[in-house]
């Protein structure tokens, strides 16, 4: 963890899929310990932005700097960068052929080079913290969606990332399972984890975010503290979006 540089600095980021320009000049700074929530309708570019930050998608133009290191520079070792940035996916993406414990220890063992015993001790500690210790030898198929997503979060945390990206992590869950996952994220925020969260859970965003960014058509149209964003949005598009959310009963 370093000093003055922001945890994440994004400058004029562009990304297209074929003729479709999904990100049209994103500028974003995230300070250490900050929790930034990305809101916006489907297709506004939230997921793509997160995938670009983790270099899962190559970018077309712009710069991404993590703690002073430009990760989009030519010739950087993407594997070294990815171990510093954790990501949790909407569809969990656990490895179905591995037990929970093996899912969590794969990265620490193969990437960080920990021995099996140490990796398992650390993983067990994390699993215990999130109430998953009894499930450590189960295969993912046996877990509920909420449990699977918590395992996915633990898997990302096991790499001790400087920055955690969460991509609509509750969107694939049954409503009654959403809370257990959100509570995990709340705890991470309370412990100072730097996070960028794409979410449709506006109530959650309002509670947890240090800052909310509204993405519209591949640009950050408006950003600010949650209280301001949700009660007095400046932009007409933001207002329309929030109105739709309220109409759908999600705020």
């Amino acid at each position: 963890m370093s000093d003055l540089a922001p945890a994440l600095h994004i400058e004029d980021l562009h990304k297209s899929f074929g003729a479709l320009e999904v990100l049209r000049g994103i500028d974003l700074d995230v300070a250490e310990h900050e929790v930034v929530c990305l809101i916006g309708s489907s297709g506004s570019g939230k997921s793509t932005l997160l995938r670009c930050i983790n270099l899962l998608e190559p970018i077309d133009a712009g710069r991404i700097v993590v703690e002073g290191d430009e990760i989009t520079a030519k010739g950087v070792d993407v594997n070294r960068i990815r171990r510093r940035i954790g990501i949790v996916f909407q569809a969990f993406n656990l490895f179905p052929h591995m037990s929970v414990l093996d899912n969590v220890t794969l990265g620490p063992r193969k990437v960080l080079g920990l021995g099996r015993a140490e990796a398992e001790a650390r993983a067990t500690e994390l699993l215990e913290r999130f109430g998953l210790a009894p499930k450590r030898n189960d295969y993912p198929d046996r877990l509920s969606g909420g449990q699977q997503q918590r395992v996915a979060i633990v898997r990302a945390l096991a790499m001790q990332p400087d920055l955690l990206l969460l991509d609509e992590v509750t969107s694939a869950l049954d409503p009654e399972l959403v809370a257990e996952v959100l509570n995990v994220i709340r705890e991470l925020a309370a412990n100072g984890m730097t996070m960028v969260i794409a979410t449709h859970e506006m109530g959650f965003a309002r509670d947890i975010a240090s800052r909310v960014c509204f993405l519209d058509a591949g640009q950050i149209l408006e950003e600010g503290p949650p209280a301001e964003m949700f009660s007095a949005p400046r932009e007409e598009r933001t207002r329309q979006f929030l109105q739709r959310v309220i109409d759908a009963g999600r705020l």
Partner: protein
Amino acid sequence: MSLTGGPVDTGELIGFAGSSGPRRSRRRVPPGEALRSSLIALVSTIVVFGLIAVVVTNAPNWPDVQHSFFNGEIFARSLPKLVEAFGTNIALFMFAEILILALGLVLAILRGLPGPVFFPVRLLATVYVDLFRAVPGILVIYLLGFGIPGLGIAGVPDDLFFWGAVSLVLVYSAYVSEVYRAGIESVHWSQEAAARSLGLSRLQALRYVIVPQAVRRVIPPLLNDFIGLQKDTVLVSVIGLVEIFREGQILKSAAFNFTPLVAIALIFVVVTIPLARFTDWLVARERGRQVAGGGR
């Protein structure tokens, strides 16, 4: 596939494929109905096979055919020699299968390497697979078995077993690489994304995440190719290697009788069927383990 032929429920179809696996009947058949179905199946089986037996044994030349194909005395006499010669086939397909499984996987991975740098590698692997799937195996065996020792290069083996095995490896690794490739492509890309997001390199993602899942999915088609390989070991007889088929031909010529060839057919059947059931068991066990959890 339903043995009883009665009211088929899907659970029975799945259960039959792996008799030791978990049965997943969704609809229970009442006991009376099940018994009735079994009886009907039994009676119709007896009738059908009885009719076939009557027709065949009443054919005008049946006694001659029985004498030249199903001769008990010749069968008993040739069986030990055939079984002994079958050892060569077993050695051939075991030795070849190990290399085929390894080479096929390497080929499949090479064909999937991304980026323009690896274009020549992809091209070579593709040409290899196309070539050895196109040329009939018996020709590969012929050309390698006679051609390469014929060159007379010092140090190149002229062993028939060696060139027979090499030919089978070349042909079958091309098929098997396609099976692996289908398996690898069937693993959803999000699995690779998850692996790479942890910082695993592309090769590590393949090794620990993609390939293990791919291999589990393609075990049945791999076994299919393995059975094909077992049978194709008899093709090596064309370059003169004394294995079961060549031994059978020798016995056939000596006795002026085809019974040894029928015996060979039986030996292959006896070897293949348990293997097929074993694979079903493996697949069922794997499925059971992932669903039931608590493997360790």
